[in-house]
């Protein structure tokens, strides 16, 4: 009886130690892998050009660069935006759209003649003001906050926009 309980004790110690080894190895690894997922998105304002680069009534594609990219990020440090100049001045002078279709994120394409954005993946269509004109997108194009500083147009960086459900 004594022999048996000693064995049971030793098996528990062995199993416990194995679990402990797993935990001390696993915790730092988990922290290392998960930390980037909880980093807050940068909300810096980055310049996209002179206000005069954007004629009134036109919609232009610009690219903005992540202010602090990883050295090997290459082209992925860039993000494209559609910038629509609505008026010569005032608070509703610009509309800044993410290029991502609100359906599943493919890049929408501006058709200047028709004043619509078309998506190449599942055929989503948006009007020039970003509202849905047809196809599967559940909501208007995602817009970004912008500001004017002197004669420069600044746009706020943000995380990949998603349609949140649930």
């Amino acid at each position: 009886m004594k022999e048996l309980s000693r064995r049971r004790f030793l098996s528990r110690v062995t199993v416990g130690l194995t679990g402990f080894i797993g935990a001390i190895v696993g915790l730092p690894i988990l922290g290392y892998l998960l930390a980037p997922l909880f980093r807050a998105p940068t909300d810096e304002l980055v310049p996209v050009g002179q206000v005069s680069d954007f004629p009134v009534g036109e919609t232009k594609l610009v690219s903005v660069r992540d202010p602090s990219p990883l050295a090997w990020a290459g082209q992925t440090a860039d993000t494209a935006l559609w910038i629509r100049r609505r008026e010569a001045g005032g608070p509703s002078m610009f509309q800044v759209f993410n290029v991502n279709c609100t359906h599943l994120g493919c890049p929408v394409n501006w058709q200047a003649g028709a004043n619509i954005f078309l998506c190449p993946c599942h055929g989503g269509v948006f009007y020039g003001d970003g509202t849905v004109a047809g196809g599967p997108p559940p909501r208007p194009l995602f817009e970004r906050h912008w500001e004017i500083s002197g004669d420069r147009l600044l746009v706020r960086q943000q995380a990949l926009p998603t349609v949140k459900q649930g």
Partner: protein
Amino acid sequence: MIRLRGIGKIPGAIASWLGERFELEDSLMAVLRHPVPRELERPVGWWYVLGSATLAIFVMQVVTGVGLAMTYVPAPNSAYDSLQFISHEATLGAVVRGMHYFGAGAMVILVLGHMTQVYLFGSFKFPREATWLTGSLLLLATLAMAFTGQLLRWDQDAFWAVVVAAEQAARAPLIGEWLTRLVVAGNNVGGATLTRFYATHVFLIPAAVFGLIGIHLYLVVKRGISEPPVAGLPVDRPSYRARYAEMLRRGIPFWPDSAWRDAVAAAVVVLAVLLVAAIVGAPDLGNPADPTNVVADPRPDWYFLGYFAILALIPPATEALVIVGLPLFAFTFLFLVPLLWPDGERHWSRRPAAIAAVALPFIAYASLTVAGFQSPWVPKLEGGTLPANVTQGLGDAAHRGADLFVSKACFACHAIDGAGGRRGPDLSHVASRMTRDQITARIATGGSGMPSFAGSLTPSELADLTAFLLTRH
């Protein structure tokens, strides 16, 4: 023991020395010679080779994958160039990458074929439920390998596939946002994304696959290979094991009586992949991944095209259900199969519902794949011109209208005499079914998925466009 009488005896001598020192006779050979039902000697035995054929392709994927990893650079600024180097400059690089690419397709086909055979033979039933469950996990792992592998090409298709995957992940209830961050490894697709997919593709999932194959094969040997089903002879749990043990007493050793067929099948599939790779070579990469190049036409590889198609064809309101629910339902069903139907008839001729459960998804997915290849819902973005016979002999107004038809992107969605997109109705004969007023109203206000063009056409442009369309009888 070893007497070197002739050089020809050396290999045999080495083999017997190894066999003795490693005691292979009662370990490896005992396992290889495990008894299998005698029926496998008959041609029905050929149905049992799909699993080993899959295994052979997996080993080939590991070997070619290790080869590719020797050259591939998993960083966004170099991945594309290193793949171009492998495909066009490295000696035999095109063949190795071709084998890996076509091997991936072959593995998806073989895993599905293997599961279909096991399902229709009722081999998942008692006492082999766990074998099926590990097999289902291997199917999941195979699809995950296929998806993560495509991304490593780091061309435009790959880049936007990551974005689409992230957006789909976002639809999951509660953990959606967190999943999105997990997919892109941060807030945006960037420098951290590709290395994670790379490590997942070459370490994480393969490690899981090795482990699962180990358990799967352990179960195949431990539970024994199922006997070919006989109609009218159902699985009866209390008596099955005794009946199967009796069957094995009259059985044949797997090695070599049955294994030779597996070797033939494995050789055939590996040779087929090698031949296709040697003839076709590595598939061309698309344009390099570039978030600022919005002239993209992202498509997944062929085995995911059906899923791509379904996302375009379902009503938007059902989307959350389909994106999250459909895969969840499919895999839950897969896992529940052996738990819900562990006994009863095995033969497919006595299981009409099982035949339907195979045929309907296959037909549905095949049709969706065809639809995905054609993608009629995608607007024609690259522009073009109307055929000469359409614009010939038009009056002034109608001629201006024909120009507007192209410049105002009507052409992107509507075809006339074979030119143009297929997203909206073909307008070759629109005047025979709509009046002037109906055409004008439809262009101005849109409807049925068509945008309103009132804001982008002047009244005279609208009149010209209508005049043009009225020539289309």
